[in-house]
């Protein structure tokens, strides 16, 4: 059974005050515009896509850190779409998030050991002295040794990689069933990314945890995720098993993401597809296929007029003219 089921999820941000409303100049930012997927127990799904495609918003929605505008979220068999905060509180320890902004996620004045221990106390799982002992074990576990020394440090006394280990330790101390990891390695040296990802993979195995890995880097997705969902302007445009997608992309946007990933391999036979321009403003989503203004293959009126639906089974794609293998 799936741990998480998401159906036609939407988040619209309304921008503008009362005056704007009277003058009818409110903007509706369609950050997430109908997203559907399932996540199995112990499975990792990567959400990939350009900046502004709606990845973070999707991640926050499924954890109910944002109020959805529409759709349905079922967590471990329970519909949590409209669940009240009081009830959600009981579920919170089972769903954790690693935030995109590494500076926002740790209190600069708090000892990092205490930051790791805190969730245990807040959720009534342990007393401070027990929590402290568990936090020390956790520090050891994420490779911050000697743990006693690291426990007392402040975030500023850590390197970027060490700080991210603390953030992971804090998210893992409650042994969650679901982790949304939002760009956990994008601010870290390329050569150190794998060690952080490995740490997440170890926890995932140990807790049989499900993971949503948000990243714009397909090379990162490939290391951790069994499946990939490619997002563009608030919608999933392609989804399927990771290696399969990487070898045979069906959506031109997926192909463009693959082509943009730098490689060290000389003369790699990577696709040459390049897309111009920038992602559209989500308050003015293009007609028809929302990717059409940037798509090098779109030359028919169909792409401009008709929105392609997601089709397929284990591999799904929303494109009128999917790439053939």
């Amino acid at each position: 059974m799936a741990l998480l089921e998401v159906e036609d999820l939407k988040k619209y941000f309304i921008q503008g005050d009362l005056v704007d409303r009277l003058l009818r100049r409110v903007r509706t930012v369609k950050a997430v515009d109908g997203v559907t997927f399932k996540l199995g127990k112990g499975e990792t799904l990567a959400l990939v896509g350009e900046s502004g495609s709606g990845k973070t918003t999707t991640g926050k929605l499924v954890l109910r850190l944002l109020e959805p505008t529409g759709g349905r979220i079922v967590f471990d068999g329970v519909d949590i779409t409209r669940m009240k905060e009081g009830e959600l509180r009981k579920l919170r320890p089972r769903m954790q998030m690693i935030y995109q902004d590494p500076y926002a996620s740790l209190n600069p004045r708090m000892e990092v050991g205490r930051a790791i221990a805190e969730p245990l106390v807040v959720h009534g799982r342990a007393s401070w002295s027990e929590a402290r002992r568990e936090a020390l074990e956790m520090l050891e576990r994420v490779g911050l040794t000697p743990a006693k020394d690291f426990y007392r440090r402040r975030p500023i006394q850590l390197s970027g990689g060490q700080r991210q280990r603390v953030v992971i330790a804090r998210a893992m101390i409650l042994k969650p069933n679901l982790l949304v990891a939002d760009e956990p390695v994008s601010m870290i040296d390329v050569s150190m990314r794998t060690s952080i990802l490995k740490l997440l993979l170890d926890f995932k195995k140990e807790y049989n945890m499900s993971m949503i890995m948000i990243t714009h880097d397909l090379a990162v997705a490939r290391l951790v995720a069994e499946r990939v969902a490619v997002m563009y302007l608030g919608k999933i445009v392609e989804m399927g098993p990771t290696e399969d997608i990487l070898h045979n992309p069906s959506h031109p946007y997926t192909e463009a993401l693959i082509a943009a990933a730098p490689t060290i391999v000389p003369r790699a036979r990577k696709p040459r597809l390049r897309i111009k321009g920038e992602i559209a403003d989500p308050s003015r989503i293009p007609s028809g296929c929302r990717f059409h203004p940037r798509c090098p293959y779109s030359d028919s009126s169909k792409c401009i007029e008709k929105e392609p639906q997601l089709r397929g089974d284990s591999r799904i794609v929303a494109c009128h003219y999917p790439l053939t293998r």
Partner: protein
Amino acid sequence: MTLLRIEDLNIDYVTLRGRLRAVKSASLTLGGGEWLSIVGESGSGKSTLAMSIPGLLLPPGRITSGRIIFRGKDLTSMSGEELRRIRGSEIGVVFQDPLTSLDPLRTIGDQMAEAIMEHRSASSKREALEMASAALESVGIPGDRVKYYPHQLSGGQRQRVMIAMAVMLKPKLLIADEPTTALDVIVQANIMRLLKSLQQRMGMSVMLITHDIALAAEVSDRIAVMYAAEIVEEGPIDQVIENPLHPYTEALIKSTPDLWREKTLYTIPGNPPDLRSPPRGCRFHPRCHKAFEPCKAKEPRPTRLRGRTVACHLYG
């Protein structure tokens, strides 16, 4: 033709916690029209080395010895005023975060025109604004955007503006310090392509600072690998990538996630050293799987080897 020659450069930061050598005995040359990338882990001294060239070291950073010969003149002995004149006109600089280098309260046209006037490359504000708008066009931004404020542009567009400002006075050398680190892959690929085409069109030399060796591999002519304040290997990009001589270069390549190679979870063991107390002998030896006795005791000297330079005891 050599445009830039760095000779035995040493740079220190002296703080309350002690002295730290961020660049140690660095030597490099950069030819006219050539693209050299400097790669290495965070804290290895890449930015310090690059920023010392146009005199942009942040205090308490100080060049303690060595020379930086640019077009025949030693930049280390120039006054602040002389260096300011060279920046922008002969050496352009692009930083990682365009928001911190743009004034949020002034239009980008205003800021570009001011830089042009400063170097007396235009006779009037109007002419300067025209130059600014042409410079924007050259980086793929409509010229009328001179009227925009920085926050009205996307991150990728702001970085293009920074590039336009850095190259509008046709410098001989462009130094770009992690210009795409804050951007997503598609914008990154477009910015890198822009830099490459500007380099070729203007015959300009480029020094790119990055921690992503794959990014460097796609655009560079030469590459220098830094580890713990030292340049451990330098050479033509293809040779270094296909046949890395230094074990650190090899490890760096192996640890970089890459879509086009077999999937691996390889990581370099251990952590980079604290530059206040670097290991004795070869600085990489505690993490090196090829280390042998001399590595612990003696510092390796840079050795020339088939057009490359490597500092490792494996090569004498």
